[in-house]
């Protein structure tokens, strides 16, 4: 029996590391989308963040600087997107897709010299006493620092969006940029900030991949997690709390299917691999039946360009 519990604890630990990059990137994209900007370049920004973080950590020997570089690189990528779509009014969907392709290529180019090198994984925080508690100890109090950061950032974002004036302004710009502009809010400025924040979070998610999750660099290492993060925002119907649940549901099912195989249950592994996506579709269908709730949370101006006439 104690063996079973040990296994459940181990599985839970793995779920947390799998969910964290999704949660980080999705939190950023949530803020971007709430301001009315749809940036489909998450995968590309994550990859650039991953290589920037990894290369910096290798060169300087400091994972803290690595994380900072990942954040900065993600923000830089988002800035390119913001200039193109907000200042030059390029189509957001096309520009976002281009950003992903660009990021994939750029990260591969920078990363070609960093293949096959290992970096020391992020140290785990061991909170004295607490992390030695049975069962919950290692799960709640023995993780690396970015995992706690992901929770804190999500809480901060939720507070910012729904409890502060600035958050209200951001949401109003996402819902009706014309009205917000008429009152005198700087639509483009706020959107710039929201987009850059989204990029920084994607970069952080990428850096988590290359510094903690599988501490190495290999081309295309995010393997589609940026797209999952995008789906998560819709899955969560733009609500931070549901985002948390969604990230852990996605991460959880993905990990569970690996454990189920090792336990020897006879469920086809392809079916299990499919489950998270099936769950997304199901939840989307269920939520979509309630149109008003979607309309309440979805930013009405999502993806629409804004041009201040006069």
């Amino acid at each position: 029996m104690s063996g079973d519990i040990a296994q459940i604890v181990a599985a839970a630990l793995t779920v947390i590391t799998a969910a964290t990059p999704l949660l980080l990137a999705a939190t950023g994209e949530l803020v971007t989308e709430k301001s009315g900007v749809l940036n489909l370049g998450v995968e590309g920004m994550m990859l650039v963040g991953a290589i920037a973080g990894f290369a910096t950590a290798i060169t300087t020997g400091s994972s803290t600087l690595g994380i900072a570089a990942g954040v900065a690189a993600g923000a830089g990528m988002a800035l390119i997107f913001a200039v193109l779509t907000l200042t030059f009014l390029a189509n957001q969907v096309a520009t976002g897709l281009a950003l992903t392709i660009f990021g994939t290529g750029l990260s591969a180019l920078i990363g070609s010299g960093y293949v096959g090198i290992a970096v020391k994984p992020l140290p785990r925080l061991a909170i004295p006493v607490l992390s030695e508690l049975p069962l919950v100890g290692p799960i709640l109090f023995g993780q690396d620092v970015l995992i706690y950061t992901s929770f804190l950032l999500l809480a901060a974002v939720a507070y910012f969006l729904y409890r502060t004036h600035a958050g209200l302004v951001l949401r109003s710009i996402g819902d009706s940029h014309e009205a917000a502009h008429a009152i005198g809010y700087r639509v483009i400025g706020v959107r710039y900030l929201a987009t850059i924040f989204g990029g920084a979070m994607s970069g952080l998610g990428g850096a988590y991949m290359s510094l903690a999750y599988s501490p190495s660099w290999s081309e295309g290492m995010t393997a589609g997690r940026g797209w999952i993060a995008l789906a998560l925002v819709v899955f969560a119907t733009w609500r931070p709390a549901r985002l948390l649940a969604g990230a852990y549901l996605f991460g959880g099912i993905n990990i569970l299917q690996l454990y189920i195989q090792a336990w020897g249950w006879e469920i086809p592994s392809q079916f299990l691999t499919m489950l998270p996506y099936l769950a997304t579709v199901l939840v989307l269908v269920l939520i979509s039946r309630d149109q008003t709730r979607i309309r309440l949370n979805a930013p009405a101006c999502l993806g629409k360009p804004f041009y201040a006439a006069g």
Partner: protein
Amino acid sequence: MLRSRRTFTKMLGGTAAAAAVLGRPFIVRAADPFKAGFIYVGPVADFGWTHQHDTARKAMEEAIGTDKVKTTYVESVKEGPDAERVIRELATAGHGIIFTTSFGFMNPTLKVAKDFPAVKFEHATGYKRTENVATYNIRFYEGRYIQGVIAGKMSKSGTIGYIGSVPIPEVVMGMNAVAQGMRSVRPDGKIKIVWINGWYDPGKESDATKALIDQGCDIICQHTDSGSPLQVAQERGMHGFGQASDMISIAPKAQLTSSIDNWGPYYIDRVKAAMDGSWKSQDVWGGLKADMLKMAPYTNMDDDVKAAAQAAEDGVKSGQIIIFKGPIKDQNGTLQVKDGEALDDGKIAGMNWLAEGIEGKLPS
């Protein structure tokens, strides 16, 4: 993926500037020398399968001389209809020999080969040949047998883990070879399998490794391409084996050895043959003896294990050890190979059963 093929097409159209900006030469132009083309399924920087093909391409260029042979490669080409277009472009651009280095390039290769009878085609890991299409492969399972011997000697729990990619005979024969090797030194050895249904996803590979270690596996074998299983093994104080290339640099304390793909000698032979006109369609399946498969140095193990590994390597090389020699039962207890009988290459290449000692099912 889109990027490299676009660049390639653009360059054929003459806009070489794009590649100059990207700084990665996807194509090398030359007027006179013999031209050899390569198509890769992954990026050259994958540290595994494609990386090894590209290393061999460079070795071949070096050996024959860059004044006599020019090579072109296109990386990250998707298997399927897209591949046909890229192969056709290479053939049209005057390449005398074209290597298509993934199983899924089989039908596109055959289709293009039909239209270019003067061009020689070499398809890795395939089984369909014509007048101008040859096939070649490495007996990877020989290396896995040695891994099994090492794992059997080293494992404390008696249970080892195996990360499976996709359930095709190539992967199945590797699992069975590990089982044969392990059970030759430890008849009660067990192997747990987790399939990730893909060849390359560093995140998922490390999750699978964690799942296996959590189930009590202390040695990890992998048939996937990234080094992350080895890294996780190292972090947890366990051991594993590298895949395709020597991965000791990323897991110096965890790698026991690695099966290294060595395509170089084959590429040199075949390009030379194509140049002097002696090229003929053939099927080559070379292993340790042919030097197409090499073992990385045996590390992180005691001397007696090292000796056992070396003995297994020598035995396989000399032919004294026949890996799939009966009696071999499958996991349901059915006798698959009779006592004294040895499986022929055709049966090995079509293997669709898991040997005794392996836990976990073959997804159908």
